[in-house]
């Protein structure tokens, strides 16, 4: 155990947080009476609860780790994605672009909207692509979360798998029983705990390390590229263009984000949740990014040589928790661990539920010959959430993550972000869009990132994948999906539309 983690003081803080969360999560299950209340909380979510839930869901340990890695590797320029997403979310919330017609339609998932325009086959295939991209993306959450806890608290690395399993079990229990209602109420608690921990640790770091010291470290390691993404040889224009595509698409179609739009009590509330949460996305990258920069400034060169064997392949990812284990004192360490558990649990619960909602609502829908009873619908949904938990546990245990975590998350997300954003925009605003275009966009949008991920793993193509780069490959996916939508839609004879 880290000398800075005291079982009595810090353990009590963590235990209290876990007790409160489990109690709240399980208590609200009594309000779950049908599938709508389970999947979209009966569409009764108001603005402040929505902001808390969206912020808590979109900040997990995984976010903290990749944003800190970006700070460590690219300096302040690593916060660019957060700035881009904040602008995208504010603009979309203020204008109502896509989210207004989406919420007005009264659907529970995006593919359900697609069915009205493109037919049931597109709905089902879109559901499969969304679930595939979402689960691959989420697959690394558990391991990375476990690694953070092991390194920050000094827990035995052999306990990582057990830590992951316990974490998942706790989340699964209240998500399975309470669905979106439990997710919203626990998200609210988790947002408060997470925010208190994030702000307190950041103030401590600024006080102990100092602004000048951090700026000097970035200048020394990254030069001008540490402050300006265009001057950074690893970032540049392709990186920024890809960020614009990914962040706009994620704001429009990432199922966990859109679930808040669809759970909102009305369309103006949904839009206010977006504008009200937008600046959080800057904080989401700046705060952990600052922790990564502090690690760059403070850790001696050989500090990462002592990492456990399983974590040595990706030292920049683990610098931040190693640094925190040396600087955060007893008491605050308990708050930090509780904050990170809060961040992780809110993300995991929401992700499990939203991918389950797509499986139930869109992939399995054609197999239901008649409407399910509320009891049966709830049972199926709960079983799917449980099955996703089992998948996560096994995938998280064997998938070897290499390279940049943020790039992995974006690429797996791009499998569906590219095509679904194109489908949603076309569905809402282009009259000529049809099922041929939709299917072509799904195929082209998914094939490119999947091929890139496979090429990265094959020795014969790994070098080519490295030369091409994740950003270019991602941009190609967006361009291909858009072109395929236009070409496919124009090729389909109007009479068969």
């Amino acid at each position, binding site marked *: 155990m880290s000398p800075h983690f005291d079982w009595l003081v810090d353990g009590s803080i963590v235990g209290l947080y876990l007790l409160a969360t489990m109690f709240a999560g399980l208590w609200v299950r009594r309000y779950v009476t049908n599938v709508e209340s389970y999947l979209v909380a009966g569409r009764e979510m108001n603005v402040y609860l929505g902001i808390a839930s969206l912020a808590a869901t979109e900040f997990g340990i995984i976010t903290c780790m990749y944003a800190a890695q970006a700070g460590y590797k690219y300096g302040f320029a690593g916060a660019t994605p957060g700035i881009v997403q904040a602008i995208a979310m504010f603009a979309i919330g203020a204008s109502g672009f896509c989210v207004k017609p989406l919420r007005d339609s009264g659907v529970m998932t995006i593919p359900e909207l697609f069915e009205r325009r493109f037919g049931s086959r597109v709905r089902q295939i879109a559901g499969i692509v969304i679930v595939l991209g979402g689960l691959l993306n989420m697959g690394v959450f558990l391991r990375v979360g476990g690694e953070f806890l092991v390194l920050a608290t000094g827990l035995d690395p052999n306990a990582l798998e057990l830590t992951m399993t316990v974490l998942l079990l706790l989340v699964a229990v209240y998500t399975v029983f309470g669905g979106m209602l439990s997710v919203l109420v626990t998200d609210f608690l988790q947002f408060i705990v997470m925010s208190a921990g994030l702000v307190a640790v950041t103030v401590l770091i600024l006080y102990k390390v100092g602004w000048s010291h951090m*700026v000097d470290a970035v200048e020394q390691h990254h030069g001008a590229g540490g402050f300006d993404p265009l001057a950074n040889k690893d970032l540049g224009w392709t990186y920024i263009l890809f960020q614009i595509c990914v962040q706009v698409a994620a704001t429009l179609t990432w199922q966990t984000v859109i679930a808040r739009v669809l759970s909102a009590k009305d369309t103006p509330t949904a839009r206010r949740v977006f504008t*009200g949460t937008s600046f959080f996305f800057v904080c989401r990258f700046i*705060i952990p990014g600052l922790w990564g920069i502090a690690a760059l400034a403070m850790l001696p060169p050989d500090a990462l040589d002592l990492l456990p064997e399983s974590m040595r392949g990706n030292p920049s990812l683990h610098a931040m928790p190693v640094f925190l284990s040396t600087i955060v004192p007893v008491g605050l360490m308990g708050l930090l661990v509780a904050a990170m558990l809060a961040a992780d649990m809110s993300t995991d619960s929401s992700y499990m539920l939203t991918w389950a909602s797509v499986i139930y609502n869109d992939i399995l829908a054609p197999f239901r010959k008649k409407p399910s009873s509320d009891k049966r619908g709830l049972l199926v949904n709960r079983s799917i959430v449980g099955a996703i938990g089992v998948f996560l546990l096994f995938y998280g245990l064997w998938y070897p993550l290499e390279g940049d975590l943020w790039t992995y998350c974006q690429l797996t997300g791009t499998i569906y972000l590219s095509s679904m954003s194109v489908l949603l925009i076309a569905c809402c605003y282009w009259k000529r869009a049809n099922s041929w275009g939709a299917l072509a966009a799904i195929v082209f949008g998914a094939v490119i990132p999947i091929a890139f991920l496979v090429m990265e793993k094959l020795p014969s193509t790994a070098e080519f994948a490295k030369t091409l780069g994740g950003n270019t490959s991602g941009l190609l996916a967006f361009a291909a999906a858009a072109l395929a939508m236009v070409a496919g839609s124009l090729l389909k004879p109007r009479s068969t539309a």
Partner: protein
Amino acid sequence: MKMPSHPFWWALVAACLIWYSTITLKIAVRGVADVRGMLARLRARSGGK
């Protein structure tokens, strides 16, 4: 008073800390009302069970 180096990033960090602290306090207060309202409406909808 001496201006901190890289004022854009300094101002952004300061803005994040101020905004985040403020919104957390606001949500802690207003969010409770939202949770209560949501549960009350759900209870009313299911016939006060």
